[in-house]
C-alpha cells in the first residue's frame, strides 16, 4: 500500500522505516531542515520538505493519488487535526491515523471525527492504572539490619479502615501503625486515633506482613 506520513520526528521516522521494511511505499513530510537532512540520508527521495498543512506540499507528496493511508504524527495537535481534515474531506484519503500529543486535546479529535487516534500519554496512564492500582501501599524505607520496613498507606473512602479508630482495627501480627498524616499535619497513631478518607498512615512491619496489612486497611 501507499502511505503518506506527516511529521518526521521519532514516531514518523520509525514508522517509515518499519513500513518500508515490510515492502510498502512511503512518503514522509518534514518541515524542519535539520530533521529533513537526517531523514533524507536514510530515506532519500521518499522525504519531502515542507509544512504538511499546506496543500501544495501535500500535493507534492502525492496526496492526490490518493494514498491508502495517511498518518498525521507531527508534534502539534492542531496541525494533525487540520492535516486529517484536508486528507479526508478534500482528497478522500480512505484512512487516517492521528497522533494526539496532549491528551486534553483528545475531545477535539473526537468532535471533528478524526479517528482513530493514538496518544502515548493516555496509553501509559492506562497501563499505570492497570499495573499499579491507586491507593496502595508505598514502601518508604527498609531497615535492612532490623528486618523491618516502613510503609505509607493512603486511606480511601472505600477502605474498610476508614471511619474506624485504630483500636477497632484487628492489626495483624508483626505490624503497627506509627502515625497519621492529615491535611499537612501528622500525629502519632494511638488507640483512639480515627482514620478518615484522605489520611496517609505510616506503618512499620516485618517482612511478609504486607498482604495482611493491606487486607485490614485497604481490603485488597
Amino acid at each position, binding site marked *: 500500500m501507499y502511505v503518506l506520513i506527516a511529521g518526521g520526528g521519532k514516531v514518523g521516522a520509525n514508522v517509515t522505516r518499519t513500513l518500508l521494511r515490510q515492502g510498502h511505499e512511503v512518503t514522509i513530510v518534514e518541515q524542519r531542515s535539520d530533521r529533513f537532512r537526517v531523514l533524507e540520508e536514510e530515506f532519500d527521495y521518499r522525504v519531502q520538505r515542507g509544512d504538511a498543512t499546506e496543500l501544495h506540499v501535500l500535493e507534492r507528496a502525492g496526496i492526490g493519488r490518493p494514498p491508502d493511508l495517511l498518518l498525521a504524527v507531527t508534534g502539534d*495537535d*492542531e496541525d494533525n*487535526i*487540520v492535516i486529517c*481534515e484536508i486528507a479526508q474531506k478534500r482528497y478522500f484519503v480512505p484512512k487516517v491515523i492521528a497522533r494526539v500529543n496532549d491528551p486534553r*486535546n483528545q*475531545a477535539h479529535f473526537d468532535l471533528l471525527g478524526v479517528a482513530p487516534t493514538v496518544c502515548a500519554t493516555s496509553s501509559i496512564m492506562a497501563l499505570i492504572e492497570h499495573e499499579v492500582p491507586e491507593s496502595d501501599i508505598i514502601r518508604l524505607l527498609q531497615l535492612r539490619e532490623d528486618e523491618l520496613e516502613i510503609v505509607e498507606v493512603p486511606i480511601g473512602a472505600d477502605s474498610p479502615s476508614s471511619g474506624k479508630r485504630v483500636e477497632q482495627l484487628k492489626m495483624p501480627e508483626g505490624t503497627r501503625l506509627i502515625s497519621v498524616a492529615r491535611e499537612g499535619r501528622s500525629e502519632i497513631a494511638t488507640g483512639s486515633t480515627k482514620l478518615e478518607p484522605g489520611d496517609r498512615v505510616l506503618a512499620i512491619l516485618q517482612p511478609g506482613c504486607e498482604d495482611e496489612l493491606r487486607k485490614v486497611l485497604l481490603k485488597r
Partner: protein
Amino acid sequence: MKAIIIGCGRTGSSVARHLLDAGWEVVVVDEDEEALSNLGTRWPGRFIVGHGLDIEVLVESGIEGADAVVVSTDGDNTNIVIGLIAQRRFRVERVVVRILDPARARLFAERRLHTICPTSIAIGALTEAALVGESVTGEGESI
C-alpha cells in the same frame, strides 16, 4: 450582544476595541498575559489568560452564550480548530476565523467556516493599487 475574541495581537485587540465601541460586551482570551497591553491602557472588558483550545477557558469566557466569536491567534491551524470547536461544540452562529494561508482559507470556507484571509485581501489591494494607482482599502490603512 456579546463577543469572544481569541488571540489578542494587533488584529484581535483592534477588533475587540471596535466591538466595544459599538456597544458590545467583549471578552478577550490570550495565552500571554502581556497581550493585555495591546488593548490600550484601560480595558474595561474581561481579559482571560489561557489557550483557546482549552475547553475550560472557553467556557469561562462565556462562549456558550456568545453572539460572535473572532479567532485571530498567530497560528492558522490553531485558528481553524478553535473555530470548528466554537461552531460545532458550542453552536455559536457567528464564528469568524483569520487564516493567513489563502489555500487553507478557501478550503475551510468551503467547509462552512467563515474565514477571513488578510493575505488574499492584501494581494487584491496591492494588485489593484499597482494597476490603477490607488489602494482600494484607502491610503495607509492596514489589514
